[in-house]
């Protein structure tokens, strides 16, 4: 079992002819992902690593019966690519692109309320169901099939935590990077809902960071609705207010909202142990299983 994607997911790559698109298409195919189509305006008719390329998303979805897309389109055109994907009947759109203007994402966010398609990201590493499929840039070799779900706002931090889990023999059902931007599609609560409903997921790791109130909302959801135990990690304890820590979303406002402490307190109140180090997170997961 897994959430959102599995070995049957038929994947479309938007921006497949660019450097990133080509490289990660190859990596995904190597991992076992069923990549059925790519798009790149003006490049229809070509192939990339054996995958047929179309000019428009609509054409690609219709011709190859795709379920999900992965967006590798540069930031200036990424919102447009997402709008194009949302106007088809894809189930899931995973936007990897980093640096999408926030006002573009506000318009996308509005559009999401009008369609059934789910967006993950932008500025995220993607999603992986180990041993079955990956959509995005996650390094497949550090993951292992198992019973722990993982949801995170950050890419390399996800790898760090997964590495601690896998090296102790703890595998994952699905790992999902929701992205480090202020406005994103799928959020913690959406992912936690899916993990709660997944019978095979026996524990969930949630890696948050400073900025916004998504972790606090997740804590409230965990307390109210979850039987599956959750272990937490929050990055950015030492971040000073008003300084953006890399991720556009990782900023503690001057009024003190979005601090690591407020998130740690909220999670602890919801019964979620929050590790001081990534290794301690893995210890906590071992205790919960």
């Amino acid at each position: 079992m897994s959430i959102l994607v599995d070995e049957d997911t038929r994947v479309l790559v938007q921006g497949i002819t660019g450097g990133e698109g080509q490289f990660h298409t190859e990596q995904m195919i190597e991992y076992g992902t069923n990549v059925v189509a790519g798009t790149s305006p003006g490049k229809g008719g070509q192939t990339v690593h054996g995958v047929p390329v179309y000019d428009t998303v609509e054409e690609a979805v219709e011709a190859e019966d795709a379920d999900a897309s992965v967006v590798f389109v540069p930031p200036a055109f990424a919102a447009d690519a997402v709008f194009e994907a949302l106007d088809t009947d894809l189930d899931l759109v995973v936007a990897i692109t980093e640096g999408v203007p926030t006002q573009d994402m506000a318009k996308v966010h509005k559009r999401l309320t009008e369609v059934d398609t789910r967006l993950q990201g932008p500025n995220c590493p993607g999603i992986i169901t180990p041993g079955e499929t990956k959509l995005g840039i996650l390094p497949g070799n550090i993951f292992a099939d198992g019973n722990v779900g993982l949801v995170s706002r950050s890419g390399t931090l996800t790898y760090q935590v997964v590495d601690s889990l896998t090296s102790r023999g703890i595998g994952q059902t699905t790992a999902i990077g929701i992205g480090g931007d202020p406005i994103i599609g799928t959020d913690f609560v959406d992912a936690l809902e899916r993990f709660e409903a997944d019978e095979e997921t026996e524990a969930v790791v949630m890696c948050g960071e400073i900025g916004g109130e998504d972790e606090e909302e997740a804590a409230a959801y965990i307390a109210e609705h979850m039987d599956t135990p959750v272990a937490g990690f929050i990055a950015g304890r030492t971040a000073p207010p008003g300084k953006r820590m890399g991720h556009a979303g990782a900023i503690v406002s001057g009024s003190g909202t979005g601090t690591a402490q407020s998130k740690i307190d909220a999670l602890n109140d919801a019964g979620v142990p929050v590790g001081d180090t990534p290794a301690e997170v893995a210890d906590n997961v071992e205790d919960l299983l």
Partner: protein
Amino acid sequence: MRLHEYQAKDVFADAGIPTPPSALATTADEVVARAAEIGYPVAVKAQVHVGGRGKAGGIELAEDEAEARAAAEAILGMDLKGYTVESVLVEGAVDFVNELYVGVTMDRGAGEPVAMVSTQGGVNIEEVAAEDPDAIAREHVDPAFGMHPYQSRKAVYDAGVSQSLARDVAGVLATLYEVWESTDASDAEINPLMVTGDGEVIAADAVLNVDDDALFRHPDLAELEEEAADDELEAKANEYGFDYVRLDGNVGIIGNGAGLVMTTLDLVDYYGGAPANFLDVGGGAKAERVTNALDMVFSDENVDAVVFNIFGGITRCDEVAQGINRALEGFDVIPKPVVVRLAGTNAAEGREILNDELVTVEETLEGAVQRAVEYAEEEA
């Protein structure tokens, strides 16, 4: 990117928002000359990116030349919460009877912009928001349509602005929203929006923070970035294209990915050290970026030891290791001890390549951070 007050005022004034006459000055003589042109009384205001400038002594009123000179001498060169004041804005003082607040920001929770108005301007609006949230009228805006005219009126009436002023304040708010949208701002604020005895409204301060990710479509604003950078090292980071934040500690930190770099900072603190900086070299770190990153961290005189932490996904650890060797081989003496931890793609190859006469190699993140903290203590 945060614009300075004088830069933001220029943008607001160009859009048609009333602002007081003002001019920038960098010496006491210039301050006196500009004040004479503008006419007394004037306000002399430090142009640095810190909140609460007034309380910290960064804003002085001057009734005459002697006071203007005294204010200039006191403020220019002063240290304001860690930033040296290089320039001041000389501005005609507004004879006000009332102070309002108007602002537009992105409500990230709601995923849409929100316009705000309050009759309790002039003081710290965040305190007002915390203590008396109802004192701020909020109007969420559909980003696809922009702010409808009725919404700017509604926000103004909801805030309790008097009818005689409502039309002008709504006009300022509507313009402010247009500026916010057209500049890809994250925040646009006027606090205070002063009301004069004659019932005129005038923007006595200006905040305009622009989304860094949207600067590519605002080359005019991007040009202001250099002027707006407060710190030499932060300016250098802009040049190299790094996400960099300078902090007060002595353990320099280089890593890939914002979340992991933040975690490395937190671990330095957890193991009893103090982080000197946040530096994210980003994905696919090639040799040149590695060299530049080390140059950045060694340029910070507070740094006593460096921890270099890479978890390779797209980034290949063997390439990073080659970059580290190349950067350090260029020194006769390594300026500060460097601890390296490589994990993920090609980590074993990377560790093999690293020259352990130049760096200390650690296998785990926790181990690397503890070692760097020890080195920093020894060097300090």
